[in-house]
């Protein structure tokens, strides 16, 4: 039931104009914006005007100006430097979480689809169970055990996302398994690992890339949300979620402080969404014609 819905959702994306083909420009802009973010995540800390964690580089809660382009926060730290510094943990957490889910979910999905029978029975039951648990509840329970921090939050999101990959990979694997070349490989005495790596993985690569892109976007949102709740990188390090959470108490008099991290984050997540969509249109032409 849930899988049908996920498929419905994936195939009728909000970003899909109904009958018209999408303008490729949107995808190009999204890729470009994403490239800038990735670049800033790598070299950004070298370019920023002030050390992101240094207190009182300027007055407290200063509005944007020539000296502090994005203003300063309640501890007199430069917001531009902090926003740039927050990009790295955001991308690292999203990539780590997605990688964990991708690797473990793919292994489970391949095993279930290849061996079927009892293996499939056990894996599918686990996946069904995980799908029946609210994701944030599960993530927060995992974090209750692991404690907060970037890696732990990424691991929690990764665990929560495993079933999404396992289910898609299992479905695609079952489809490929009925092909003649799988029988041919089996008859020529090839083992499971060979068939999986040479035949199954390459043939499920394109749906796998598509759901990886989708989950990269959800993982970015999930990590920022967990960071907002206090499970992300530890202070004083900058992080989108915690910066936004910290600024809430100044919303009456100095609402500006929330704007730089919030806008930077929304642009990031929009860029990931739109880039993922553009990628899907290229890899899965069926989704465009809908």
């Amino acid at each position, binding site marked *: 039931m849930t899988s049908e819905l996920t498929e419905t*959702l994936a195939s009728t994306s*909000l970003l899909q104009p*109904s009958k018209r083909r999408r303008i490729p420009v949107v995808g190009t802009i999204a890729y470009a914006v994403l490239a800038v973010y990735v670049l800033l995540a790598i070299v950004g800390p070298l370019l920023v005007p002030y050390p992101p964690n240094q207190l009182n580089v300027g007055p407290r809660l200063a509005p944007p100006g020539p000296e502090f382009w994005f203003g300063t926060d309640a501890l007199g730290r430069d917001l531009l430097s902090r926003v740039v510094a927050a990009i790295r943990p955001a991308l690292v957490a999203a990539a780590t979480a997605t990688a964990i889910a991708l690797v473990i979910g793919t292994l489970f999905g391949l095993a279930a689809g290849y061996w079927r029978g009892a293996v499939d029975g056990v894996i599918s039951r686990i996946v069904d169970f995980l799908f029946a*648990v609210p994701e944030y509840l599960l993530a927060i329970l995992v974090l209750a055990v692991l404690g907060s921090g970037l890696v732990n939050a990424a691991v929690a999101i990764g665990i929560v996302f495993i079933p999404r990959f396992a289910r898609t990979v299992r479905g695609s694997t079952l489809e490929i398994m009925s092909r003649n070349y799988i029988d041919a490989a089996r008859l020529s005495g090839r083992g499971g690992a060979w068939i999986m790596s040479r035949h199954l993985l390459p043939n499920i690569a394109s749906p796998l890339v598509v759901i990886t892109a989708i989950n990269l976007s959800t993982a970015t949102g999930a990590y920022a*949300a967990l960071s907002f709740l*206090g499970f992300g990188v530890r202070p004083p390090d900058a992080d989108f979620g915690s910066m936004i*959470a910290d600024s809430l108490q100044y919303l009456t008099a100095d609402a500006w402080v929330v704007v730089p991290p919030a806008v930077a984050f929304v642009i990031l*997540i929009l860029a990931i969404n739109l880039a993922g969509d553009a990628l899907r249109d290229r890899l899965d032409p069926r989704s465009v014609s809908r």
Partner: protein
Amino acid sequence: MIGYIVKRVAGAVLVLLLLSVLIFFAGRGLVSGNPATLIAGSKASPETIAALEHSLGLDRPIIVQYLDWLGRAVTGDFGVSPFSGIENTEVLRQQLPVSLELALMSLCFAVLIGVPLGVIAAKRAGSWLDTALRAPMILIFAIPGFISGTIAIFLATNVLTNLYSPVYIRFEDNPLGNLQIMLLPALAVGIPTAPLIMQVTRAAMIEVLGLAFVASARTNGLPERRVTYGYALKAATPPILTFIGFTFGSLIGGLFIVEQIFGLPGLGRGMLQSISTRDFTQLTAQALALAAAFIVGNLIVDLLVPVVDRRIALR
């Protein structure tokens, strides 16, 4: 029908049981080391700790402790928190209604916004109106709950100050005041969910509007409004309803965020507080209550689907 109900209820109970195992051990994982040491303090003598362990039943095998906890939980007894000295059932009695109210209000908003917009978009599929309705949804869909919550608290503290109270107003004390302060939090959770419901409604309606019985209703001279809302929407309800069950998970995510932002004393915020105070007895009670509410909600949807769609084979 009875077989279907039994099967669904049994499935829900099984999920809750498995989840209870997870919750119990997550609660123990929250405390690194001996819970008795944490409660008594690091300076307590070994005798005190041993006595405390015994009185809390912590010296028994972990499986026995789990079964004991589960057995009591089923009867609604979650014990007394050794940290705060408050009965955990009392905590749930305070917090569960807050979260349920917030979740239900959010769901209402999501449905009231999503379904009509989806119907309108489906009626005019491919037109400028369809695009105009769906374009802002791209942005809303990309905005995570903590951003919409931040916007809501900004509005609450700056513009719509009569819809905000720093102190929670209980429904029993002042129903109108309670609904007022819950309005913005519920919108903050509901609005980000609406685009998904709109999308599913639109897809389901486009399918149904192309079916023969809709054309037949039109040729029989029924007013268009009645064809759309009386016939087509009714036929499109099952997939929409099933999908609404699917959004409960993201509603729970929204609860954690928005309760935290608005300082609402619900289960989401309560769980975060329990985690920070390492109160594992309270955390497990809260998590189990939240999980049970979620599973019951899904069960209700599961049981409603065959009611609205008699064609569904009751497997």
